């Protein structure tokens, strides 16, 4: 079904209107409609100009400024970008930015892996697996209980006295207790496992709605044709919710450099677990405003924003293509 518009020129109703009413009346009516539209979206537009453009333009300008005289004055400069360049191409792969960038992509990769997992959770809920009523409630817990509790608990679970390490010790995998979050080999992985633990639950909400809106006739038709459950999933259900997946992928991409997970609560960025967004946060958090670090953070933000835009548009382009094929 296509959405259709009130005053669409091709709409037969509009054409009929045009015949019936005089042009002046039509114009008056149009003006009235515009006035109505303005009345319901005007404030949002003002809001956008003030709170979005106003704020962000300033942020972009900050990227091109550096502080002087102990932060009391500033001048235009490209030094912030020069520093980013230096971090990337002079300091080499052990620089903060490279490590953070690498981790950012690892987290992104993880979120891609989470797609099918979230889908399958939603699918089984949709298929009313035993206990789905309870699962639906329990799986919402991670979203409602504060991250402070989850991260504290998680730290205990993976801690040296926790059940996991004790089990490994019993198996003889480790000679002595280790602290996963304080070990450069395991810290990042341990943070990622936490993301999976918290993420599995949220995923089903995303697809639950889309699945519930699949017309029952479509499913029933398939069942009458005698297709098995696997084919039903692959050939009927997945294509139907593909647009939702596409949108999710796009949003995931948009959030590539802004989502920071729970690094602050788990490791504080130590042991090579920092990401780009955490790096920006760390340059602003508890730093006096007179410091140029704010400007540097703005520059990092701007660089990665600029890098993301083309990627997002390319992905969008391909997603639209796929959708066109499917429908």
């Amino acid at each position, binding site marked *: 079904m296509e959405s259709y518009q009130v005053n669409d020129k091709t709409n037969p109703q509009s054409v009929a209107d045009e015949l019936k009413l005089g042009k002046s009346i039509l114009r008056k009516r149009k003006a009235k409609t515009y006035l109505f539209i303005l009345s319901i979206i005007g404030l949002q537009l003002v809001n956008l100009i003030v709170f979005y453009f106003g704020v962000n333009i300033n942020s972009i300008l900050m990227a091109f400024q550096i502080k002087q005289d*102990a932060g009391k004055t500033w001048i235009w400069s490209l030094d912030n970008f020069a520093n980013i360049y*230096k971090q990337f191409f002079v300091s080499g792969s052990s620089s903060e930015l490279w490590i953070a960038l690498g981790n950012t992509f690892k987290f992104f990769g993880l979120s891609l892996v989470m797609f099918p997992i979230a889908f399958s959770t939603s699918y089984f809920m949709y298929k009313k697996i035993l206990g789905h009523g309870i699962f639906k409630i329990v799986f919402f817990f991670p979203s409602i209980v504060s991250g402070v509790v989850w991260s504290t608990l998680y*730290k205990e679970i993976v801690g040296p006295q926790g059940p996991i390490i004790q089990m490994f010790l019993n198996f003889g995998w480790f000679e*002595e207790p*280790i602290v996963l979050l304080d*070990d450069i080999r395991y810290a990042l992985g341990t943070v990622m496992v936490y993301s999976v633990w918290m993420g599995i639950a949220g995923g089903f909400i995303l697809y639950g709605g889309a699945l519930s809106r699949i017309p029952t006739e479509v499913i029933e038709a398939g069942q009458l044709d005698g297709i098995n459950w696997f084919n039903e999933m692959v050939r009927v259900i997945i294509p139907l919710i593909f647009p939702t997946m596409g949108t999710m992928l796009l949003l995931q991409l948009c959030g590539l450099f802004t989502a920071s997970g729970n690094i602050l609560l788990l490791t504080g960025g130590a042991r090579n677990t920092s990401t780009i967004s955490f790096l920006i946060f760390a340059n602003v958090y508890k730093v006096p405003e007179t*410091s140029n*670090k704010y400007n540097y953070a703005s520059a990092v933000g701007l660089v990665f924003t600029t890098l993301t835009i083309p990627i997002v548009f390319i992905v969008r382009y391909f997603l639209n293509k796929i959708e066109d094929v499917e429908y």
Partner: protein
Amino acid sequence: MKNYFNRIIVAFVAMIVALGATACAGGSGNGGGASAGGKDNLEIFMWTAGYGSDYMKAVITAFKDKNPDINVELKLSSAPAFSDIYLDPDNNSVDLYFTTAWGYSAYNEYLEPLNDIVNTEVDGVTIASKIGESTVDLLTAKDGNVYSIPWANGVCGLFYNATVFEQNGYKAPKTTRQLADLCATMVSDKQTPFIYYKEYWKYMINGWMAQYATVANFNKYNLGVYTFDDGTTSENSIDLFINNTARDKALEVLPSLIGSKGYIYTGTNTLTHTVSQTYFLNGRGLMIPTGSWLEYEMRNSISDKTPDIKIMKYPVLSSVGQLLGLNENQLVAVVAYVDGDATAAQKEFVDSLENKEAVVERVREARNVYFSERIGHGTFIPKKSDAKEAAKKFLQFYYSDEGLKIIEDTCGMLLPAKYGDGSVRKSNSDTTLITSCLELQGNEYASSVERSYTIPLFYNAGIENFWYFDPIGAFSYNANTSQIWTYNQYLEKEKSYWNDNWSQILIDAGLA
């Protein structure tokens, strides 16, 4: 479903009316300043750190008795606040802050200079001399003004489980090498030498740095000045971070203390400070670098079963001996000499030294160094306050003998200033822990080491320490041996970090 929501919404609206209406005004709404009756209205903000707030209430009561024309309002917070001073100066009703604010110097323009307070005489001496002239020097900004003075004091260093020490016959070490040997003994006794909160090792490292560089030179580091061996100096330069021998020598000790299996409590690197202190009080490690607040902060964890806790004198960095041309045994002899527990042979050796006076004085200073966590707890008067005079009057009272006595009696924390007669304590009802801290602090040779951040190189560039890479993470034992850096690797990494980033640090600091 429909009815559900109507009910929920009605219930919530009712709750909003009941709670929201009253709380919306919470915290704000105090005009501050002189009220209609001509009574001065002094609003005090207090961060209820480890020391609690009872003592402040007692000080206020006494102050009110003396100044009935001033109406004091105390606002408590479990979180420190400072940003109102510069972010929203016009709507800030607080007249006096007792809080913590790292890098506050960036906002000096919003603060009232406290010079006249510092120079006020109470009990026959200036407040500056009560606080300590050297501390006031550290707090003096480039423009010659003092904007913050300490309201609390913590004597920091290495605390130990005196009960177990006594049971096992362990002696407090005189040098860092003795400390390392002691750790080895403990490990062979199946004891865990260290439990710690990573950050607090800075008390030890800075103290050791001051031992090596001398306290006077260390204090100059705080102002961005590095003094070379030949006496030449450089200011705001990279030397402080890459040519700093004192720092290197202090860090060199760490691998021998925390670098081997069994020397540290497993997982201690991830502990917060209260958790590590809880473990320490329950015997999971015999030594912990922390501060004199330990007992008061952990008052919920103290019971009859809690062992005796004491602070030890800073073990003298063994490399100070090399600096003075002494070998380890000779250094131990000099330390014993200044401690007053030297054997006859040791005394003889010290007396035979050619430059005895200089050596003894140098070692004595090193032995009596302690780290003082005072500057971190600062009091401020916002420039926009309309009750500045009342605030200043209150501070004068706070630092008077009368005020200090109330603090001593109600809280037991170490005082932010001395009494008029130079003493640090009036009563002697203190616990073992506080008594040992007082011995360290009240000793006539004691010199405190502090960190201040009044220069843009520190506060604007976000430099909190004289090192960049976390030395504890780098040196502490981990089951994964490849993760430990050797001392030389660490220094190399430090050097390349500072070299690579120095130009950016200067930009960040606004010094480029």
